[in-house]
């Protein structure tokens, strides 16, 4: 699986915190300006809608990836999106809460449940954590399906979420309940998620997170509380998921239990794997490509799922570093990542792979 990441050259030793290059900052700034001005440059409603979905999915994929860095395959994320969405919908519909109150309340709700779930599950590892998180996803969906039907509407979902308000921005007014309003909401979500996660993984604590996926016992032996760090990144991802859910409720104005089920959770995993787990650009790229691809495939009806399946199998078998590893393969004709990516590439695979297989090789 593309083992060829070069070691950091001695002159540029980093703690995983990359000094942002001037080029990097410029590129990021140009992209941000372009994204911000896209609606006023005449993006049509369809394009704006696809873009919103794309931003939303990128945010989810990055949040999933952040927890994956510590070696946990976390399927609870979509459950927390559901909790955020249902909190917003219920408070706005039944309690007539304004958006400014409902959004933070949803984040808090996700965090509160997240603390409980985190305490209960984050000591589990590997397949056990994966399956228990999977079970929590199902429990949450079924809970919204069959409990408190008066409040949550059962299988009929919650309809009639009030539209988000019109905001005065710099003298102009932005109608949040329009395609461009949703565009900005999701863009904000994505920028917040990516910035926050990027700051975390490129800080010293990011190094700790990556270390956890490789050896818990060694980390503990030098005083790192693996539980504490997993909890912190899990809650970061969970809070962002709650926020995403809240925005989801305001975008769709209805929420159904099936919106937060296995399919969506699995898609987030797919974005991440197809994009590549070696770098934050991986989940971003994967989510973008698959969202656009899905939009395009939609016209072929049921072929959509077939195509997803084929893409997955092909990527898993032939492009194991994910899409981010492709440019490097082409330029070097091997499984190596490009130098620029390599320096920042954190090849993270599950503990089972990294430590067990590697130790076995060592012992031979």
């Amino acid at each position: 699986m593309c083992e060829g990441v070069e070691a950091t050259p001695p002159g540029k030793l980093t703690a995983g915190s990359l000094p942002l290059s001037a080029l990097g900052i410029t590129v990021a700034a140009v992209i941000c300006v372009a994204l911000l001005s896209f609606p006023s440059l005449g993006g049509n409603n369809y394009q704006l809608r696809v873009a919103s979905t794309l931003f939303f999915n990128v945010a989810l994929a990055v949040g999933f990836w952040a927890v994956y860095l510590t070696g946990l395959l976390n399927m609870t994320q979509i459950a927390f999106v559901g909790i955020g969405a249902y909190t917003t919908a219920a408070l706005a519909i039944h309690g007539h809460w304004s958006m400014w109150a409902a959004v933070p309340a949803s984040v808090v709700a996700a965090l509160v449940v997240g603390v409980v779930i985190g305490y209960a599950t984050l000591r589990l590892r590997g397949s056990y954590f994966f399956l228990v998180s999977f079970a929590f996803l199902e429990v949450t969906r079924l809970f919204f399906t069959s409990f408190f039907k008066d409040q949550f509407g059962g299988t009929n979902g919650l309809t009639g979420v009030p539209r988000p308000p019109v905001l005065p921005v710099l003298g102009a007014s932005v109608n949040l309940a329009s395609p461009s309003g949703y565009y900005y909401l999701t863009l904000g979500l994505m920028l917040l998620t990516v910035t926050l996660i990027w700051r975390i993984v490129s800080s010293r604590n990011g190094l700790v997170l990556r270390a956890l996926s490789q050896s818990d016992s060694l980390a503990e032996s030098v005083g790192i509380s693996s539980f504490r760090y997993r909890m912190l990144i899990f809650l970061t991802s969970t809070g962002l998921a709650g926020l995403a859910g809240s925005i989801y409720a305001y975008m769709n104005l209805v929420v159904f239990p099936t919106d937060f089920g296995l399919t969506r959770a699995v898609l987030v995993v797919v974005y991440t794997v197809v994009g590549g787990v070696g770098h934050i650009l991986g989940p971003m790229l994967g989510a973008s490509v698959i969202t656009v691809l899905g939009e395009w495939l939609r016209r072929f009806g049921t072929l959509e799922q077939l195509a997803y399946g084929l893409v997955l199998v092909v990527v898993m078998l032939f492009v194991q570093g994910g899409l981010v590893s492709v440019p490097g393969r082409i330029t070097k004709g091997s499984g190596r990542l490009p130098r620029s990516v390599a320096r920042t590439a954190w090849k993270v695979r599950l503990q089972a792979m990294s430590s067990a297989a590697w130790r076995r090789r060592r012992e031979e």
Partner: protein
Amino acid sequence: MSSPLVAESVTRRFGGLVALQQVSLRLNPGEIVGLIGPNGAGKSTLLNVVAGVMKPTHGRVKLGDTDLTGKPPHVVAAAGLVRTFQAVNLFGRLSALDNVMLGSHLRFRAGFLRSLLPLNSNRRQEREIRDRALAILEECGLREQAPAEAQALSLGHQRLLSLAIALAAEPKMLLLDEPLAGLARGDQEEVLNVIRGLVGKGLGVLLVEHNMRAVMSACGRIVVLNQGRTIAEGSPAQVASDQRVREVYLGTKREKAASP
């Protein structure tokens, strides 16, 4: 720095099996104590109990006045008691330097929120950690290997790197679990020299080792375990001449000699 590590009559049972029976151990700063015994004598269990990986069924573990009995490993490490592992255990996909920098986590831990801010103090501290990690690598003879991925190092270098990581945690007491296993003679000497250097600085070292030659030459005092009990304790010479130790180690020979 003058607080000893004390294990008081530690007992550990697994179901009906008694792995440790009332074992006591004292390790003073500035000495190397060897812990030896045949396979299954309970050496690893004792190490795991002291390091917090396992809880003792009975007994206490203390570092100076701090009671560490049953505390989780990261708390034990924070108290100044750091262990290494018998099997190679490294952050295999990170560079040697990153490995050592992670070792210094206790000293330089960064607040989760604070580390998100682009503060100058963060950057300064980062440079300090890196310089210190490089110095430790230098001390262990690994300066050249700093940028290499840990899993790509030779076994000897990996053992040294394990030691470097433990040192970065600035331990008061170091528990080494067979640090020489699988090493060639020359590499063994290299590791032993590093260990001797540490003791000169006031560290206490508990050396669990199969290699008798190394233990005899390096340790001031040796504790011998057999079947979960301490059967002898004393200077290398005392232990070597102890009747029971000879029985345990040379038992088969004696039996042969006794039979007609």
